[in-house]
């Protein structure tokens, strides 16, 4: 057994435990949202989707931003570990983005009266999701590890450019998406029970991101090891 495989197994164990804890924490967030936070008078129970949708958006944007930054770092350092992290963060970001893009319309239907609107924030977020699907497809299509890392790093950096536009889109364009109520210059505007539940949820889903990225990194490490061995055998 080589060092890489031993390291991959250790990382998988750590990532698995962290992920399990975060998933249990996710069940706790559901209970907090249901039992602790008040029902918002104008939106009803549908408002509680907030505690799921906002942390998913946070997780996706952090994951994609870190992928973009790691991609830039890879082009500077040429370090395979950085490329492996970028690939891991991109794939995990897609899971968070899938939750964001499904819970958003389920919340939108009772509040806006429509599942979807081609509004700048929603459209840019969907484009970002497709860009990272393309990033994954590109990685799957290229067999040379250095070429794969270099080409996908360029896509990762280009996708990073979209992230600030998505965050600022509610200020820059006319949009039906609500303005930020937590990350505001004059402080959060929601009741303290809602703010506490949201912060717990963001912490839990950040932990989930860390657990999933660790497991995905372990997978990448084991795959790179197998690829290197196969290359060695072929040559």
């Amino acid at each position, binding site marked *: 057994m080589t060092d890489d495989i031993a390291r991959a197994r250790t990382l998988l164990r750590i990532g*698995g435990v962290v992920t399990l804890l975060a998933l249990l924490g996710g069940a706790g967030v559901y209970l907090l949202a249901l039992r602790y936070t008040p029902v918002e*008078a104008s*939106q*009803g129970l549908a408002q509680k*989707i907030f505690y*799921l949708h906002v942390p998913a958006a946070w997780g996706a944007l952090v994951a994609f931003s870190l992928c973009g930054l790691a991609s830039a770092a890879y082009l500077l350092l040429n370090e395979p570990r950085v490329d492996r992290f970028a690939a891991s963060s991109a794939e995990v970001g897609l*899971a968070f983005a899938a939750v964001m893009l499904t819970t958003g319309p389920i*919340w939108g239907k009772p509040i806006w009266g429509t599942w979807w609107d081609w509004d700048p924030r929603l459209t840019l977020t969907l484009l970002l999701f497709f860009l990272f699907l393309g990033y994954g497809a590109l990685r799957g299509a290229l067999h040379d590890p250095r070429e794969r890392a270099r080409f996908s790093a360029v896509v990762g950096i280009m996708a990073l450019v979209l992230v600030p536009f998505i965050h600022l889109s509610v200020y820059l364009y006319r949009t039906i998406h609500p303005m930020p109520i937590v990350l505001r210059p004059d402080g959060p505007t929601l009741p303290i029970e809602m703010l506490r539940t949201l912060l717990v949820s963001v912490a839990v889903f950040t932990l989930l991101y860390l657990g*999933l990225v660790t497991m995905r990194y372990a997978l990448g490490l*084991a795959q790179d090891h197998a690829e290197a061995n196969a290359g060695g055998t072929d040559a």
Partner: protein
Amino acid sequence: MPDTPQNGQFMVAAYIVAAVIYLSYSLTLYLRARSAASGKR
């Protein structure tokens, strides 16, 4: 003042969808990584 809307089914649907996505991705990722780390691809 208008009554609070009765739309709990949307909340339940969103939590179920999110749970399915997170649980299925976590499980498949764990199984893929375990398989790769044990030498089976």
